[in-house]
């Protein structure tokens, strides 16, 4: 299903991944472990083509990922569910909408989207918070939203980057059981993890930072645009009407063309 052949990835001449050769079969569940900075996230990014390999060949299903055309990338990604280490939740949308997004991009029927989203939110124990906004959720709850979003489209490949880093032992066990379940249904799963936690803090801070984004301003930007267009058309319309009226008065004038005999 996934095959790396002598793959290397460099950031600023520093190898994040060097000469990686391995393969993961269909329906396998494997763990990628290593200390922080070992290149686990990089490895996953190479699979869903968020990064391009500098050297080597990557095959995912029937795709040659390193050589993929820009246009085809979305179709590769639709087969891959990713639990991002940095969550990547949209803070201006509810939990439900965040999860639903993964299905909306498939232009699925809204009724089915709703059913599947609520089902998967129940699986991760967040059904009661479906219509809350992510910023009101704890770090662990946010992580479960990310897990739900990755699973909801029932991808053939699930990439989990530190999926239980923010979870207490009990919830972590529930999530791990969930992975085993979808693995049993045939999905290929790669879980990246290091033994000790400690990433929770960074991820949570990142979320707080993005939550500060103020969407209210967009309305004003739009209103300003509407007003300037209105003024422009108003001025133009005045002149057009003036021209039309003057022309019509010229042609009406012609009826006064008189001859005396």
């Amino acid at each position, binding site marked *: 299903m996934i095959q790396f052949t002598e793959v290397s990835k460099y950031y600023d001449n520093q190898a994040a991944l060097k000469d990686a050769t391995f393969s993961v079969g269909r329906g396998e569940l494997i763990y990628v472990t290593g200390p922080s900075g070992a290149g686990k996230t990089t490895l996953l990014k190479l699979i*869903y083509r968020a990064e391009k390999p500098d050297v080597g060949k990557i095959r995912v299903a029937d795709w040659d990922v390193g050589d993929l055309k*820009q*246009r085809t*990338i*979305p*179709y*590769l*990604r639709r087969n*891959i569910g*990713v639990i*991002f280490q940095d969550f*990547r939740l*949209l803070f*201006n949308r509810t939990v439900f909408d965040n999860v639903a*997004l*993964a299905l909306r*991009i498939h*232009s699925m029927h809204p009724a089915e989207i709703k059913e599947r989203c609520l089902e998967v939110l129940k699986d991760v124990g967040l059904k009661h918070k479906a219509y809350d906004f992510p910023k009101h959720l704890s770090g662990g709850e946010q992580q479960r939203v990310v897990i739900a*979003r990755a699973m909801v489209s029932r991808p053939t490949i699930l990439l989990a980057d530190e999926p239980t880093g923010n979870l207490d032992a009990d919830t972590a066990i529930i999530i791990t059981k969930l992975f085993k379940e979808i693995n049993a249904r045939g999905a290929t799963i790669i879980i990246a993890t290091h033994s000790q936690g400690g990433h929770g803090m960074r991820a949570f801070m990142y979320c707080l930072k*993005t939550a500060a*984004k103020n969407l209210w301003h*967009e309305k004003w*930007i*739009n209103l300003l*645009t*509407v*007003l*300037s*267009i*209105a003024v*422009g*058309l*108003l*001025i*133009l*319309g*005045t*002149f*057009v*009407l*003036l*021209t*039309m*009226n*003057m*022309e*019509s*008065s*010229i*042609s*009406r*004038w*012609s*009826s*006064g*063309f*008189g*001859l*005396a*005999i």
Partner: protein
Amino acid sequence: MLKDYFRNDPDVIEVKYMPKELALKDLQESLGPMNSVLAGFTDNPLPSSFELKLKGEALDPARISQKTFRLKGLAGVDDVQYGEKWLASLFTMTRGVKIVTGILSVVIFIAIAFVTYSTIKILFYRRIEEIETLKLLGATRGFIRLPFLLEGTFVGTAGGVMGLIGLSVIYSFTTSRIIEFLPSLRGMLIFFPSSTYLAAPLVGAVLSLAGSFLAIGKIKY
């Protein structure tokens, strides 16, 4: 016959003969209670006349004065009257306004497209993180671009509608003012053309769509 001569002139749309008796009656009626001033005349002081209605393109001042000259030479024609000064100045004024309108429409069209272009660019960069996430989830280019195109078109249409409202308010206000002072202009002012109701929102929508298209056209994907 003069009438046949006028009828055969391709510039003439309509010929109306006004015999002098009728002209007098008209005058008496329009004078109303003051028509006693006409009692002093034993003879009808008014001439018989023809009223000609000309085609729009025949109303060029040079052509008109040429035609007048020719008509004056016809047997039986004493005088030819039209508002030559008035017509000529109206004509040059209209031509000037037309040119200004032309230039203005180009400028304003570009401005509208540009305003939407910048807005959509701003909105795009504000949502860049969101777009990045959508891409990672497997969204296609079309899925990402569509909301921006819709937003741009909506903004343009809204601008068009608002401009239209403002325009009709200004128009009805000024025309009512003009008619108050110069009631005789009532017939001259054409009604607010109904095509404007469609044109303003449409122009706004199309230009804004074009602007947003340009703004997000270069998204790499």
